[in-house]
């Protein structure tokens, strides 16, 4: 029985929607990338690759009157520290500046106040533009994006930074690099549970309990002596190969619930064990995550070994079969150039599924919903 993980994955968006790409000055995209080409390789690179994809995609239209969706190419996650981590402090101003530009130069923003526009915001907490959760919650989603559709990696139910109608995407993981580390599929899977990463973030949360809501620390304290759990903070060169030799790969939350581990687990056929309460996984309306992965509540982490060993063998075999489905792996990747069924196409499918737009998308004359002075004072400074 070949696992069928939703034929929705194989839908072709071409012909079902039209996207108009705004021509922004290069200070919003090209120049930023030129200043720091590292942005092409980190886990937030989806915003850049989505732009490139749309520029040469058949769904692109040069006639904005016939467009269903409008895309604004602004790289808000490309201001990197020397160590390569994105600083979100200028992102709200950058986004605001871009929106001001498109609303003055084209009539389409004001027509709907952004309800038929979409933005790619792959940062930690999406359009809340902060890496610390409390601060992100305090800021909330940028007010000007209130009506737009957000394409983001962050997804958690009942959270300020996830608005209704957002499309959750996987973080960027380098497809070429993963391809070169494939091992023969008949290599027996002999590791039961595998995880590499931090359990305690000693720099920012030395006592534990804050980082990952204590879940990662709990995994370490409970299972560091368990031979079934191959877990450590190592950075082995055989990381990808090891995942292909493991049955279960832990994907616990960190400072935010999402991580590239999920993508890596799916690509390498390792069943993801998601430990993040209320998380919303990518393309949840197209991919049956419940049937592919194992979900463990954070409070059940001490019983993780009991939970995993008591899964019936037929269920595990079924999950492995579903994971082996190539369309599943393809949907998690951003290959260059784009291929059918990949994450770019899933995003377009998601956008196509939201069509046709509701009537309330179009504002009546004189109606104004957005408050252009809302938000923290610092955001109002020009960029």
């Amino acid at each position: 029985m070949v696992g069928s993980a939703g034929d929705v994955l194989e839908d072709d968006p071409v012909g079902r929607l039209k996207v108009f790409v705004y021509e922004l000055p290069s200070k919003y995209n090209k120049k930023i990338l030129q200043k720091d080409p590292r942005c092409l390789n980190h886990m937030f690179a989806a915003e850049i690759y989505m732009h490139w994809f749309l520029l040469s995609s058949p769904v692109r239209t040069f006639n904005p009157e016939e467009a269903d969706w409008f895309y604004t190419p602004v790289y808000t996650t490309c201001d990197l520290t020397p160590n390569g981590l994105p600083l979100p402090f200028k992102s709200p101003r950058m986004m605001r500046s871009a929106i001001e530009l498109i609303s003055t130069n084209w009539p389409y923003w004001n027509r709907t106040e952004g309800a038929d526009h979409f933005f790619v915001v792959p940062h930690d907490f999406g359009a809340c533009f902060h890496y610390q959760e409390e601060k992100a919650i305090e800021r909330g989603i940028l007010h000007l994006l209130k009506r737009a559709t957000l394409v983001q990696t962050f997804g958690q139910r009942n959270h300020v930074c996830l608005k209704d109608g957002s499309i959750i995407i996987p973080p960027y993981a380098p497809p070429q690099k993963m391809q070169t580390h494939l091992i023969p599929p008949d290599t027996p899977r002999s590791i039961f549970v595998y995880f590499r990463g931090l359990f305690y973030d000693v720099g920012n949360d030395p006592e534990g309990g804050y980082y990952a809501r204590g879940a990662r620390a709990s995994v370490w304290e409970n299972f560091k002596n368990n031979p079934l759990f191959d877990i450590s903070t190592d950075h082995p060169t055989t990381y990808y190969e090891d995942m292909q030799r493991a049955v279960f790969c832990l994907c616990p939350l960190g400072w935010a619930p999402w991580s590239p581990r999920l993508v890596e687990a799916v690509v390498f056929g390792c069943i993801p064990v998601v430990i993040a309460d209320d998380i919303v996984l990518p393309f949840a309306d197209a991919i049956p995550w419940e049937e592919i992965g194992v979900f463990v509540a954070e409070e059940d982490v001490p019983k993780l070994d009991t939970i995993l060993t008591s899964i019936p063998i037929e269920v595990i075999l079924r999950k492995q079969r579903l994971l082996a489905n190539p369309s599943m792996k393809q949907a998690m990747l951003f290959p260059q150039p784009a291929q059918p069924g990949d994450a770019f196409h899933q995003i377009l499918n998601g956008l196509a599924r939201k069509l046709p737009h509701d009537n309330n998308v179009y504002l009546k004359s004189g109606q104004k919903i957005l408050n252009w002075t809302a938000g923290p004072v610092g955001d109002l400074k020009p960029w």
Partner: protein
Amino acid sequence: MKQTAAQQPNRQAFTAFRSSPGVLFWPAVHVLCCLLSAAAGFRFSRLLFLLLFSPSPPSSSSLHHRHLLRQPPPAILPSPPPPHIHPPPPPAAASNGVVVGRHGIRVRPWPHPNAAEVARAHEILARLQQEQRRRYGVKDPRPVLVVTPTYARTFQALHLTGLLHSLMLVPHPLTWLVVEAGGVSNETAALLARSRLAVVHLPFHEQMPVRWHDRHRLEARMRLHALRVIRENQLDGIIVFADDSNVHRLELFDEVQKVEWMGALSVGILAHSQREGEKGQSPLPIQGPACNASGHLIGWHTFNTLPYAKKAAAFVGDGATVLPMKLEWAGFVMNSRLLWREAEEKPGWVRDLDEVGINGEEIESPLDLLKDASSVEPLGNCGKKVLLWWLRAEARSDSKFPAGWVMDPPLEIIVPAKRTPWPEALPDLAFQVIADDEDHVEVHPSKKTRSSRSKRSSRKKKKREAHVDAQVSDLFNRQEK
């Protein structure tokens, strides 16, 4: 994600410091708690937060928690906990669902593996691997016939047990034909009975000679004997020549499934012994098929014996390098139907087994069974993959070993090692005497020639044992007194 977090201290330097009302009170609490922790000598927080369950989210203010964030994390001072027992309330930003803030680290009372669960996990792994083999591994595996010549000697248990375990792991149906020189012996039978394999234990009524040259020849004849048995009984499968001291990879048994009639593999030769004054490592010598660029067999890599000419071992167990023959039997596999009298599509380039080996003909390698060696199939990516290693390690032919490697009755005399850390060592006198004696023994052999050394060292050993016995019995006498 973890990377973003690791950068937070640096990023806080970039953050604009914002003040909010109510913050003035909290630095005072902070200072108070610092002093309290300094006075107490430990940090409250560890006690409070380890081994506690997560707090229920109360709806009180979040100011204190934000205060913790705005200060740079104190490296030296203890972090200020609130003076009450429960952890500080997380902000009520999310009314239902997950709350942000400090949670306890849940550790169960006995965080160690449960044996039943580990056993179940191993069952799951075994079943999953079986499924993997079914999906990606060899389809319709043919049975494997393993031919092993052996004889009872000191290291037989070592070698045969290793081979036995390798064969037990082979996932395909397997029949093991063990040919034993000197007839069927109880030691060998006992070893073989430990496996759960189908073993055919064949006696061969000649003793294994002591010279390596004669031994290689006898082994070849023993293998021929096994091949004749296969032919008589029309056993079906792929014949693998596994010598008991060789090391095999399990992938070997998957690779040989690809053979159609006769195949050749690369064998790594572990005959190399440490040569003094040699810098760097010479590559492992490999015997096997040689292919051209398009993957066709054009010749054979054999073992170059010139560098070892003077140091080659002549007798079993004499301590010098044992050299393989030009082409070892272990590097060849064949379809058993090649040996049958009547088989469909049997190729014409194989000789009839009845005509082989008669009239004193020397069979050195399976290539002598063929009329034409050019149809041999190279396996293992045309010989690039080494799937087995040839090794000969034997003790002296007259060395003694306890029957079945069982010490029964258990030893009563215990002699301490030269350097023992245990306080119950024997008093220095006896210790030093024994040490001196051993030194004597070690110095001598280098001066003697090889043939007489064996007799000398055994005599010395006997003397030493007698000496030790005397010493130890003296000790006992002393202690009893």
